[in-house]
């Protein structure tokens, strides 16, 4: 299939982009220990140092070899960290010191090394990844036997299985791989000279290792692996730059994973095959519903994780049996290759019950099937546990016994009516009942009991265990056979039903959770609901952390938890900054009590969830992990939704405030300009046309100038008063004042020429504590207001009374009064009620200022409509000071 599309492949571009900002990794690869990788690494590092590159040694194992040792002189070594472990003090590479030092290049020997427990990462290659992410270049060494996908191949060749492995992904990500090559003869020579060190194998094993045939095979392996990497690099480059080339046909690979021995070998094989075919691959576990022990489940989980580490995907599918599941998945996902182990069982058993491999081969159709032999004996990741018998519950067997007894009773009762063979059917019902209620073994037990009872009670000679009629023997055997098959099938259906019910319950839970999330309006509620949900669905202890200022804070937890210890906090912080999981059971800081997982949205990591359990062992199965991911994603989205809703609100408020401000500005500018227009117009008229104007006209113009100037002054004064009130700069000058004084001066100032004034001052009024200037302004504003709205010729009344501990001052007019909705609003700034005959409205500030001043003096002001006739009534209330002087 020729590829005519010359656009750069997005995957390849992404890969290239991902490299920006990272340090460059160069791996010195060797076929066996002793070829001189460390030596070569040091040589190249020294050369770069001469070029002016800032290079340091992170960790270099010279094993006492003099020539290697000499090379380390002159390169700065970052001192190792002391790591106490089991009473001894070991020295480990100091990752933090290197990060702080920030060299351009660091040398890290032996990439596959396992770190001392208590270090931040359990493996050195994870340390290297952190260094690369920080932008520091790394040189490192590696033997081919440490590569994960080649691990069993090397073991097969050399009979030495190496435990410390490095995932293939790190090789794939390396920018350079340099093969340090030595012919087997030269290597053996060095071995003789005592220059080769292989601490991970005993003396004997080493002898087996360093055999020419082995070495040649290893060398070829290393060469091939390097060539593969170079080829892959070339392909990536070509795709990123849209160079036409021989692309692979898109192959897809599936490897079946189960708890049987040899599955790990199959997974590694799958990875190598996928490499050669340049195919994507998936490890698939088929969930048949048969009881699996905890150990078996763990093993499967480990295998799936191994597959993911080596660059594949993992999936679990439910099906009736393994072959069906594999084939279904293959068809649904366009798989072109299937890798499966073939059990070496006896031929006869195979006839009876064909192993999955055979079935797959038969039904695979166009798909290629690769069989990887299972190997008993020396094995891979963990010892395959002997399939445990499920604990035999006495209750189940007692129940089966009971069912059998009941059926027996019925059979005996109906003995006269039924033929002997039909009684068998009744007993069969008991067996089925036991299968449905208790499972396979109890039902087989019931089958046995029923068969014996059948023989004893119904087959002649009765009440013995012998059988006279050979036909009855057949009946008995058939009965037992049918019982066995029926048990099997029913039991399986029962387990599948249980699994299906569990799945349905989980889905229902997830659905309910997502609906609940949609309705939550506050962040705290959201976090608590999430903690509760996760804790219940996964049966774990949960804490949720969110960033606050610079730190992570515990925002919710179930069971409720406030603080975390230092180790946990460090793991949480790391998880937040790097965006990867950290803590218990992970690759980073595995000593922490909890496992911390980042919750992220498109914006990045927004929260951290911490999980803990009282049980030992791993916290989450892959299935649970997927469930957690789904819950985590939902919560992250809900958090983002709340955040965005808040931002939207803020934006809306800001926009409205802006609008309001603009409107006010326009209004004020008009109010200031209009009097000025009159003043300027009148003045310029006087200047221009003085000779044409009569005396009366001139006086009128001058009068206009005067009035409008006053009006402008009044408005400006109001504005300034308002500003003073708002900024809190108002400091009332409180004195004991005689009311009639203030009232009199207010009346003199007020523009009430067209109205009648009625004064009703109660005699004997006490002096009041107030600021005379402010109070006069209040009265003036109220009188001015009355003058505006009361028609000319009507009466404005000013009434003062004392009652209780207060003095009440009321100003009444005979105008139209206040509309109902305006009664409180008149005191708002800039609120104006247009007078009915379109007379000019006021500034809108007078009453607001009056209220502000009254409150500053400790009094109140309210507005209402008159009860006796139309008109407004404004009421001022001031407290009588306790040390009252007698009225003069």
């Amino acid at each position, binding site marked *: 299939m020729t590829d005519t599309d010359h656009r750069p492949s997005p995957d390849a571009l992404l890969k290239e982009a991902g490299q920006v900002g990272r340090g460059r990794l160069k791996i010195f690869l060797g076929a066996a220990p002793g070829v001189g990788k460390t030596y070569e690494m040091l040589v190249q590092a020294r050369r770069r140092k001469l070029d002016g590159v800032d290079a340091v040694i992170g960790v270099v194992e010279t094993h006492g070899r003099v020539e290697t040792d000499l090379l380390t002189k002159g390169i700065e070594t970052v001192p190792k960290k002391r790591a106490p472990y089991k009473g001894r003090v070991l020295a480990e590479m100091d990752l933090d010191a290197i990060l702080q030092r920030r060299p351009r290049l660091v040398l890290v020997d032996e990439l596959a090394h396992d770190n001392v427990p208590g270090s931040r990462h359990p493996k050195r290659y994870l340390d290297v990844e952190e260094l690369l992410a920080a932008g520091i270049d790394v040189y490192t060494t590696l033997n081919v036997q440490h590569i994960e996908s080649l691990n069993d191949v090397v073991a097969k060749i050399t009979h030495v299985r190496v435990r410390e492995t490095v995932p293939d992904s790190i090789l794939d990500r390396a920018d350079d791989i340099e093969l340090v090559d030595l012919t087997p003869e030269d290597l053996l020579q060095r071995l003789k000279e005592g220059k080769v060190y292989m601490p991970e194998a005993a003396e004997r094993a080493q002898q087996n290792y360093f055999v020419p045939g082995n070495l040649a095979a290893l060398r070829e392996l290393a060469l091939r692996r390097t060539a593969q990497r170079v080829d892959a690099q070339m392909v990536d480059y070509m795709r990123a730059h849209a160079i036409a080339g021989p692309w692979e046909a898109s192959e897809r690979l599936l490897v079946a994973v189960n708890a049987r021995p040899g599955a790990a070998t199959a997974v590694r094989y799958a990875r190598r095959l996928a490499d050669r075919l340049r195919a994507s691959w998936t490890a698939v576990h088929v969930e048949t519903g048969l009881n699996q022990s905890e150990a078996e489940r763990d093993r499967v989980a480990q295998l799936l994780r191994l597959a993911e580490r080596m660059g594949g995907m993992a999936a679990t599918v439910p099906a009736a049996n393994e072959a069906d599941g594999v084939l279904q998945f293959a068809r649904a996902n366009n798989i072109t290759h299937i890798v499966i182990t073939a059990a070496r069982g006896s031929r006869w058993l195979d006839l009876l019950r064909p192993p999955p491999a055979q079935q797959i081969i038969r039904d695979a159709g166009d798909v290629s099937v690769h069989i990887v032999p299972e190997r008993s004996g020396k094995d891979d990741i963990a010892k395959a546990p002997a399939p445990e018998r499920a604990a035999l519950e006495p209750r189940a067997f007692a129940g089966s016994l009971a069912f059998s007894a009941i059926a027996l009773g019925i059979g005996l009762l109906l003995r006269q009516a039924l033929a002997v063979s039909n009684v068998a059917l009744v007993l069969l019902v008991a067996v089925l009942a036991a299968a449905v209620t208790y499972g396979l073994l109890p039902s087989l037990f019931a089958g046995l009991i029923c068969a014996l009872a059948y023989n004893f009670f119904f087959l002649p000679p009765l009440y013995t265990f012998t059988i006279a009629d050979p036909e009855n023997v057949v009946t008995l055997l058939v009965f037992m056979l049918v019982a066995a098959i029926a048990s099997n099938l029913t039991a399986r259906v029962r387990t599948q039903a249980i699994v299906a019910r569990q799945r349905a319950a989980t889905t229902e839970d997830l659905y309910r959770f997502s609906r609940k999330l949609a309705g939550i309006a506050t962040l705290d509620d959201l976090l608590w609901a999430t903690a509760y949900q996760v804790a219940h669905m996964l049966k774990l202890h949960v804490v949720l952390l969110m960033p606050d200022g610079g730190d992570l804070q515990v925002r919710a937890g179930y069971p409720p938890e406030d603080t975390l210890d230092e180790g946990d906090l460090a793991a949480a912080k790391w998880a937040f900054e790097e965006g990867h999981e950290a803590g218990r059971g992970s690759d980073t800081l595995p000593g922490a009590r909890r496992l911390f997982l980042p919750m992220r949205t498109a914006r990045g990591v927004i929260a951290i969830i911490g999980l803990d359990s009282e049980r030992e062992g791993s916290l989450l199965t892959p299935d649970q992990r997927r469930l957690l991911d789904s819950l985590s994603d939902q919560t992250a989205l809900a958090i983002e939704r709340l955040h965005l809703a808040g931002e939207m609100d803020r934006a809306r408020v800001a926009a409205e405030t802006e609008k309001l401000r603009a409107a006010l500005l326009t209004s004020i500018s008009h109010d200031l300009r209009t009097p000025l*227009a009159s003043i300027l117009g009148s003045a310029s008229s006087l200047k221009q046309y003085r000779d044409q104007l009569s005396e009366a006209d001139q006086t009128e113009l001058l009068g206009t100038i005067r009035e409008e100037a006053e009006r402008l002054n009044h408005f400006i004064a109001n504005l300034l008063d308002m500003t003073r009130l708002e900024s809190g700069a108002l400091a009332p000058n409180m004195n004991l004042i005689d009311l009639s004084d203030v009232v009199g001066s207010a009346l003199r100032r007020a523009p009430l020429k067209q109205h009648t004034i009625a004064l009703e001052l109660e005699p004997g009024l006490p002096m009041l504590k107030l600021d005379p200037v402010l109070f006069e302004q209040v009265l003036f504003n109220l009188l001015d207001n009355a003058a505006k709205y009361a028609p000319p010729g009507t009466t404005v009344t000013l009434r003062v009374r004392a009652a209780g501990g207060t003095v009440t001052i009321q100003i009444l007019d005979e105008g139209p009064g206040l509309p109902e909705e305006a009664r409180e609003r008149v005191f708002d700034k800039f609120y104006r009620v247009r007078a009915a005959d379109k007379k000019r409205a006021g500034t809108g500030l007078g009453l607001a200022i009056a209220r502000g001043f009254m409150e500053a003096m400790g009094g109140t002001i309210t507005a209402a409509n008159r009860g006796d006739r139309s008109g407004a009534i404004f009421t001022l209330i001031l407290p009588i000071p306790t040390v009252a002087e007698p009225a003069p």
Partner: protein
Amino acid sequence: MTPLRILIVDDEPPIRRFLRTALAAQDYRVEEAGDGETAVEFLKRNLVDLIILDLGLPGMDGLDVIRRLRQEGSATPIVILSSRDDEAGKVAALDLGADDYVSKPFGVEELSARIRAALRHRLQQAGEKPLFKSGDLSMDLVRRIVTVRGEDVKLTPREYDLLRLLVSHAGKVLTHKFILKEVWGGETDVQYLRIYIRTLRQKLEADPEQPSLILTEQGVGYRLRAADGM
């Protein structure tokens, strides 16, 4: 001679007061209206020679008044009183058919000049005067000769058209839109116009940086100095 009648439409009594006084001193007959509806009603039954209209009226907006009057076919000149920063309002009013504007607060001399310009323009619709003189500028519209400070000036055809338009409306403000439509057919940008005005100023003004012939009305348009004796 019958005095010319002017209708003042403004909601502020002090403004009406001094306007009446000032206009009466110039021998105009003055009528008043306090809002748009009253003005429109009045004009249904009475003829005036000029209307002074405040844009910021309560109820019926100043723009609505202009629209109503022009739609009914009235050609009475209208001078509007507007707020200094209400550019949009000024341009809208002029586009709707107002003749000129004055920004509050204003000096009464300015208003008087605008009134005169508007009246003269209306009265002169038929037959333009062939010779135009204003300050340093002298323009013979028949022989198409432009003289500045005694010297002949060469103008490109487009520049001449532009100057002629300004001269025929001398003393009155012309909006950018109006000029672009009359001279360019309305297809071009204001920037284009600005460049032409600049060139004209270079050719005509004594000090192009401080023009006294072609005056800029910021945000609205341009105005040519009124003819001498006006």
